[in-house]
């Protein structure tokens, strides 16, 4: 089960990307764009092999919550295959939920390994115009 903090942050990223997508001609899903943006700095930091390992683990954990992700695979270059193809096959909401769970699991692993401060700092570097600091989790913790 993903942590409430990572679920919350994943949801915020998806909402942010969904809004950004409406203003552009992007055809990919918000989840796909969040992955693509997270992938770059994580590969810079951990290398392709390091990122692929993290993502594979996140996918395994996410499948327990969202069986629809069983069709999704991690490619050799650390990209996700099958995520955008989920929507036509299953219920749209279910597909969105699957993407959110996978992002939450990936963020959860980062929180576990490098902690809240560094994870948020990395996310902030990817989405500099969005405000992500320690306060994003306060509400979730209180709840």
């Amino acid at each position: 089960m993903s942590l409430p903090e990572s679920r919350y942050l994943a949801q915020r990223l998806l909402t942010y990307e969904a809004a950004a997508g409406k203003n552009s001609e992007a055809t990919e899903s918000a989840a796909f764009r969040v992955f693509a943006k997270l992938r770059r700095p994580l590969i810079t930091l951990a290398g392709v092999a390091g990122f692929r390992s993290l993502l594979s683990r996140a996918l395994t954990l996410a499948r327990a919550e969202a069986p629809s992700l069983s069709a999704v695979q991690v490619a050799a270059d650390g990209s996700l295959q099958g995520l955008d193809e989920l929507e036509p096959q299953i219920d749209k909401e279910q597909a969105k939920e699957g993407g959110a769970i996978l992002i939450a699991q990936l963020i959860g692993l980062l929180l576990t390994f490098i902690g809240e401060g560094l994870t948020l700092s990395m996310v902030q570097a990817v989405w500099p115009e969005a405000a992500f600091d320690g306060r994003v989790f306060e509400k979730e913790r209180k709840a």
Partner: protein
Amino acid sequence: MSTADKVRINKLPTGVPGLDEILGGGLPEFSFNIIAGAPGSGKTTLAHQILFANATPERPALYFTILGEPAIKMLRYQQQYTFFDPAKLNNAVRFINLSQVVLEKDLDAVLQEITKEVEKASPGIVVVDSFRTVVRKALGRTTEVELQSFIQRLALLLTSWQATTFLVGEYVEGEIRDNPVFTVSDGLLWLYQAPERNSIVRKLQIVKLRGQASVPGLHTFRITSAGLQAFSRTLGLAGQVRNIPSTRRLSIGIPELDKMLGGGIPEGDSILVAGASGTGKSVLATQFIAEGIRQGEPGIVVVFEERPQEYAERAGSFGLDLKTPRHERKLEILYLRPLDLSVDETMHEILDAVQKIGAKRLVIDSLAGFEMALAPGFRADFRESLYRMITALTGVGVTILSTVEMNESFTEFPFSTYSISFLTDDIIRLRYVCIDGQLRKIMVVIKMRGGNHSKDIREYEITSKGVVIVGDRLTDYQRLITGIPVRLNRSGNNEEQLSKS
């Protein structure tokens, strides 16, 4: 060429307490350095410390990781150190993984990738961890000349882009010869760790440093939650200016003993009080420090066998108030007991305390306790380091009283079991003596480097006021210093051995 014409090499702080002094002021800016050592010796932590001490958003630090410790794990562990500033990450400090380029491509591609990142970021600091991996990988398919060329071009690139560089690698000492990396480098910092009986001893050496004079030799260091802390073997006192010797005499707090010393202890002397257990060495030392406080001279007491609170309370039982001056920061009682301290580390702690309160008097109670508090591997260095510390402190006018416990012998009268009389200007010997069926105590001033002193052997007692000298010199006995004196029969010429009477 005049000094003004020479290029001035800026020195960067390492962020490691004590290391800048060992390096001769800091790291030469734009230098190309190697941090070498075995696994676990602290190389990565040292590199991080340097990185966080110097990285700014304008001149960031680039940390290239290559097939060594995975970056995620490195961040997980390194953020535990207090020097790790998360606010600098992605902004002033950037981690870049080059593993894949190294694995899949050749040295030219590695250089290209580094060049691309360096030109993009214009970094002030560049770290490649582990560089050893790059070289190992390259050796399989590269000639030695090509490898040397790569290192040369890398050094040129990073220096031209005004970066100070650190190549981190797990090297062994035998590799220094014939290895192009060591030839090209400006600086070589070698970290060691070795077990010494049950302790681990960490040492570092500046094997090479172009352009400035570093402190030669092996220096101990410790890794704590604050990262590395280095302890220069010269205790940071190299080149210290000595004070002009003072002619002032300091009261020891026992008026009759002051007279025996020719008016007190010459300021800036090192005095040794030697005697068996229970002869009052510690009491005498406490009186010396309490008298200093009374005269407005801050003091340090270094104890190894009892805690500061107990020490202050025991002084109180002799009417000596040490609690008030402790509270007023005029007195510091240092309790040094951990059994794995390095000698230089201990000396640094004492020196820091002396400088902090501007101490004029220092008591080391006792030298045996001091030696026992050190890790076994450091005991061999004890006398050498003690000599350096005493010389440095007395040179700036601190007066040092050390106590040393002697095995009481009734056939000999040794001054010290430590062969440390060369460390001391003055020696007071306390000893038991058997008189009239009682075990009494006598003292004698053995040596005063600064001048004349009383030759008298005086009896003393330990009372509620501390050490008190009683009566005049003992003129009715011979062989007092053997502990088994003979009473002189002045009416005739017969001698009577007291122990038989």
